[in-house]
């Protein structure tokens, strides 16, 4: 089992969600995060003083999947989230040892 974590641009969320549905993913968890990277931030001015905003809004997507589809899912996300402009984000995969569905107590593949 694996956990696929993706950091994407907020306005790409809808398309990523659709792409995931298309490859059969039925569950995911998202959160609002802020990213720091090559994209850089921007300068804002408030009452005549400048200040640097280093962190830009991103959305983090977490999907636990079972089986060999890691590559397919990663590609689906990458394909949908890509705008080609700097700051499109990252996807990383980590191993998951076990998974439980709280409602039923099902475990492993059944819990996805």
């Amino acid at each position, binding site marked *: 089992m694996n956990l696929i974590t993706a950091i994407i641009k*907020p306005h790409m969320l809808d398309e990523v969600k659709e792409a995931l549905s298309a490859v059969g993913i039925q569950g995911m968890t998202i959160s609002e995060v802020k990213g720091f990277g090559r994209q850089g931030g921007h300068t804002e001015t408030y009452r005549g003083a400048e200040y640097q905003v280093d962190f830009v809004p991103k959305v983090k997507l977490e999907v636990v999947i079972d089986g060999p589809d890691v590559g397919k899912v990663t590609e689906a996300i990458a394909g949908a989230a890509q705008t080609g402009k700097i700051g499109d984000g990252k996807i990383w995969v980590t191993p998951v040892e076990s998974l439980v569905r709280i409602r039923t107590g099902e475990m492993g593949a059944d819990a996805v």
Partner: protein
Amino acid sequence: MKRKLLTGTMVGALFVGLLAGPASAQDYEWTTQDILDNTWILIAAVLVLFMQAGFALVETGMTRTKNAGNIMMKNMMDMAVAAIAFFVVGYGFAYGSDAGGFIGTDLFFLRGGDAYEGGLSLETNYFFQVAFAGAAATIASGAMAGRTKFWTYMIFTIAMTAFIYPVVVHFFWGGGIIADLQIGNAKFGDFAGSTIVHSAGGWAALMGAIFLGPRIGKYAKDGTPRAIPGHSMPLAITGVFILLVGWFGFNGGSELAADQFVPGIMVTTLLSAAAGALGATFAITMYTKKPDVGMAGNGILAGLVSITAGTGTITPVGAVITGFLGGLLVVGSVIFIDRRGIDDPVGAISVHGVCGVWGTLAVGLFAVNGDAFVDAAFPLEDGTEYTASGLFYGGGVNQLIVQLIGVLIVAAWVLVTTGILFAVLKSTMGLRVSEQEEIEGLDIHEHGAPGYGPDVTMSGSSVSV
């Protein structure tokens, strides 16, 4: 560059009037009634100026956080620009000596009026009317929210308050072409400005929304309208309350005197607002099964706009009906316009345009014969008494027809002038911000910083300190 030019011209213009002193001493001794008249109108004007806060809050509450600063700024500058522009030329164009029934030609910088002989002073008149000018401009702001370039909007506001709206005022209150409109013994009537102020603002809003096009994401690929929920009902409805309160100055002050007719005006204004809220709540609940909060707020405003023309001539029961129908109408109109691909985030076109027209026509239906104010304000040329009244009170269709003609004249003027204006602006400065600016918000890109700090929205800039 253009901004420098702009401001330079303004400042220059102001110096024109600097050297001259104030108006000469008044020989006329003000009576207590004169002072009461002026004091009441000043208070009413303050209430109307307060409406600017109401407009700002309704508009910002019904749109998203990322544009909140921009919206407050636009509404604030509408007031500022209106005050200066109306002082320099607007008031003169509206109320100066008539040229061809079309425009006034003096009273610029509030100079050169007749010596005071009772009634409202020139200053009082300006102070009351300028608040209306700000409102007329601000109406369009709501329909154009979330995508308009700030400096382009400023040009629109200058044009609106310096020229387009003053000419509308001149048409009617300034003694121009609508003032003389008469069919049989029915004269066009628009007590406080359903047509002159609200529908004028509404037509400008319509043109603005059309020229801009909808916000990104407002319509699905197949054209189905999608909701873009506002960010704060508490702010929006506080704005509605402030507008309600201000409207008692708007309508009550339009009597232009403190007299025995003001109480009745207040009553019809309140009843129509209340009925508008009930009408809109009823309509939206029929339609979506849920009493939508923003729609109920629009309903109050619809009731207010609807009674603005007839507040002095419609009976209390007539006011309830007028307002209730206004409330139904605003819901239907918001949904209709939404479906037509015109993105009006706050419903300004429906509230001010559609209900402004409805309110003007309602005078043709519910006006009552023999209303004292109408007698006094609109004596017929031949000296006979004004005897027309609305269709439902036995006055026939004359009043209704004359009302419709007035509506159409104003519509034509505003649609054409704002149409030309927006077309020119679009092909020169540009009307609309870039896609990236729109997505990330006008606050950051047009004004340099978000309208809400990082501690309120997650989309804010920093979590430190």
